[in-house]
């Protein structure tokens, strides 16, 4: 645990910032006329939801690289409560906000109160 700034770490951080710009803009850089192949255009409508699921699901069901040992886990119940809220309020503009509030309202008592 050092709290001294070193050049190597600063360079790594700036490199990460450059990577954020480059990955988020990769296909914006060249202005040559160019179109995605048709199959890729169709595939793109499935990619964003896949990316989110790939990030979320391991966070919900895994602990330190392993599937969670049992069902007594606050994350599961919180995600179910949040999802249920979303499905019943999806027409409303702030359905995402409700998902967060409902999920945390279930998560915090189970996690802090029962230690799940």
């Amino acid at each position, binding site marked *: 645990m*050092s*709290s*001294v*700034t070193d050049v*190597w*770490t*600063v360079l*790594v*951080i700036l*490199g*990460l*910032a450059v*990577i*954020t*710009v480059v*990955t*988020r*803009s*990769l*296909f*914006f850089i060249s202005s040559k006329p*160019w179109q*995605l192949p048709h*199959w890729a255009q*169709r*595939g*793109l409508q*499935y*990619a*964003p*939801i*896949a*990316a*989110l*699921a*790939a*990030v*979320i*699901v391991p*966070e*919900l069901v*895994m602990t330190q*690289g392993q599937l969670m040992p049992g069902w007594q886990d606050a*994350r599961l119940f*919180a*995600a179910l409560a*949040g*999802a249920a809220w*979303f499905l019943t309020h*999806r027409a409303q503009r*702030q*359905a*995402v*906000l409700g*998902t*967060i*509030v409902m*999920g*945390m309202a279930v998560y915090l008592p189970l*996690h802090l109160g029962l230690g799940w």
Partner: protein
Amino acid sequence: MFNAAWLRHSEFRAGALDALGAAPGLAAWGLMTGVAMMNSGLSTFEALLMGVTVFAGSSQLAAIPLIAAGAPMWVVLATGFCVNLRFVVFSAHLRAYVMHLPLGQRLLTGYLITDLSYVQFTHRYPKHGTTPEQHLAQQAYLAGNCGVTWVSWVGMGILGIFLAGLIPAAWGLGFAGILALLGILMSLASSPLRWVSAGVAGAAAVAAFALPFKLNILLAIAAAVAMSLLLESARRARDTTSGGSA
């Protein structure tokens, strides 16, 4: 990037309101990322630099333990790149929306478009604009949406850096970020094949979790897209056949 006409545009407000819906989750997640940066042993300056410039929660969280362990620079950067590969896919999609801008503004726009903004923007604008009025409306929406996202993520990250000693990670406040992503996922699930895509990706990401550099995420996206496209063409072939016999 900044343009006063955006602020007056009604789409600026619409974009900001959409982003505010997920902002509490993002804020809690940003706070805990700030705490994590300090707890990993980064100096205050390094943590602030990362919190202000990197602007990518998943790559920050992937990089922090690697930096703390003293991993080679190329390993940290390669990991950041792989975790961010989904944005390359998004940029292919967004290209037609931004090519009317000069290069500098395109790069700045891309830099500011996170998962949340990408999802909400393409949901509100399924088609890219073709007239100057449409371009203005879309840029105004992005300015409002990305502006709120940037302020909540960076602001709360800085707060987390200074409150690091006071907020135990054991509270699990960062889980609010996962719930925000869950809410966005559900707003994207507008067709049965998209549910299939989410299911395949989730299962594949768990099954391939042991891969290095978070490559399980990329593998999961590839598997889910391939499966959805296969099912889509199978359904189209079936529809054509039954249509022909009717």
